[in-house]
């Protein structure tokens, strides 16, 4: 096996989401595991085809929600009863009824932060440089092209054989991309 350390992988450029999806399935069937698709919009069913696990973002957001709710309860309870008790018309210093709006808002706020920053974190963004940008036709992947990259880190990767294999799947353009 040749040394592939300077190669990121082979890019196969497809013209429709359906051919891309078929190619992903074929590549999996062939035994390739390290692959990534680059598409202008989400393709349904591609995660299953690639064997990717579902996103864990939901759990991150749940932690955000719990933090937000707890913060709101503690904030209102502590400021109202310990730090600065303010007696108004004999009303309780703390109660869940009047505390609810702030609890709700802080829960939503911290959940939203968790969703956005969690998504960016899981995606490794911001990251301004990536080997896929070395592909000459990368601009198409945000327009109307559908790319499949079989990465050099794959055990079965062999620049020429992988290229021939992808060509047989109907790729309209093939390119070996530098790392």
């Amino acid at each position: 096996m040749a040394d592939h350390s300077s190669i990121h992988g082979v890019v196969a450029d497809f013209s429709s989401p359906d051919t891309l999806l078929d190619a992903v399935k074929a590549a999996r069937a062939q035994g390739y595991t390290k692959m990534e698709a680059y598409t202008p919009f989400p393709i349904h069913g591609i995660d299953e085809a690639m064997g990717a696990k579902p996103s864990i973002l939901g759990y991150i957001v749940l932690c955000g929600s719990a933090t937000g709710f707890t913060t709101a309860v503690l904030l209102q309870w502590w400021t109202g009863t310990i730090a600065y008790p303010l007696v108004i018309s004999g009303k309780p210093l703390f109660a869940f009824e009047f505390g609810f709006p702030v609890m709700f808002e802080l829960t939503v706020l911290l959940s939203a932060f968790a969703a956005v920053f969690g998504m960016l974190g899981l995606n490794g963004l911001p990251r301004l440089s990536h080997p896929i940008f070395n592909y000459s036709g990368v601009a198409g992947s945000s327009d109307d092209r559908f790319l499949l990259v079989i990465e050099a880190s794959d055990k079965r990767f062999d620049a020429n054989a992988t290229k021939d294999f992808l060509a047989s799947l109907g790729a309209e353009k093939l390119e070996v991309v530098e790392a």
Partner: protein
Amino acid sequence: MADLAFDPKAVEQLSPPLVTGQPSLHDVTEAVSIHTELETHRNWYIALAISGSITLLLGSMLAYLVATGVGVWGNNNPVGWGWDITNFVFWIGIGHAGTLISAILFLFRQKWRTSINRFAEAMTLFAVACAGIYPLVHVGRPWRAYWLFPIPNADLAMWQNFRSPLLWDVFAVSTYATVSAMFWYVGLIPDLAIIRDRATTKLRHTIYGIASLGWRGSATHWKNYEKAYMILAGLSTPLVLSVHTIVSFDFAVSIIPGWHTTIFPPYFVAGAIFSGFAMVITLMVIARWVFKVEHLVTMTHLENMNKVILATGTIVGYAYATEFFIAWYSGNEYERFTFINRAMGPYAWAYWSMVSCNVISPQFFWFKKLRTNIPFMFVLSIFVNIGMWFERFVIIATSLHRDYLPASWGYFRPTIVDILTFFGTFGLFITLFVFFTRFLPIIAVSEVKGMMIQTEHEKHYLPATTAGSPESVRAH
């Protein structure tokens, strides 16, 4: 199988196309990106000069207010809340349609939202920016506005009263502004990457490259992105309902006749959606024409929005009637007086302007001819906006101007500063739009593309699926 009694025309009538003229994916990219790439048009500078001047007027009015005091406004006893809170509720209400379109319609899988959600979300942000000005400056000493937030500080030396709905409002509005901004930006990331990939100069490539955070559109990216988008939509849906509910608590939790009613939360939310959709129509009719995206924002979109205006306008009319009924049924003489005074007192002109604009005018949308007529819907949407401004004014002014003692009765008159400040917020609103439409894609490109492909698939599979239930086919 496929040649069952399947009539594509009948299907098209049931669900008209959301993108007309069958553009390719590339055509869509082109149509939406091109306006950010062309040489700046002379008209853009003219628009910016006009709206920018009006924004400067807003700035000078606010500077005058801060330097002099809230007395430059018409607010005084007994009408302590005047145009400031009217305009605050007016602007925040307009924002709600944007969140409704981006979040609630997303959860309901309403595909028609994809062409208008970016624009409507931008409207939300800019409207909230206009709304946010008022509570900050009407506190009297805006340089102390941070006292509204529970920040430990030495000069206040105490904590906020969490039993006050005004404090709930601080949390609701700031959360709403933050979450709307994040939702909007998350939606923009893949589209900013499109503009980056099309960039012809190094500078453009760098700026849009940084703004898009290096988005690559990989399957992993999309997986987490779609999840995040769905969670944000799920969070924004109760959020938008809570915001106007809490805004209505500012009134309903008080004991002022005309304010102290349980109908306020749903009635305010319906009114907010009503006014927001009207504002989307006003802006979208202009934008689709200026930016030549009539094939992406089609008559179907406009008609659907007009249907929402009709529905929510009718709810608002029903709420007005219920308020009157309850005022009579409560047997409370102050409550009765307030409502009779609303319709027949010194503010009757405002009340009946509100009723004609909000209750009568949307009823024209029962007629398909009228709700698909662009000049007509444009004019009507402006009427709705005027009517919804009057609604807030009527609620605030009529309830306050007659205090329990006739000795403290009064009449609110806006000053020139009130009027110019309000006028100025439109300048800010439009200026933000002028920048938005110049530098950012005004339509969610990747969402429209995904929707086009999905629709194509459904069309392809439709005959096969309907074949499973022959009754439904024969029914046509």
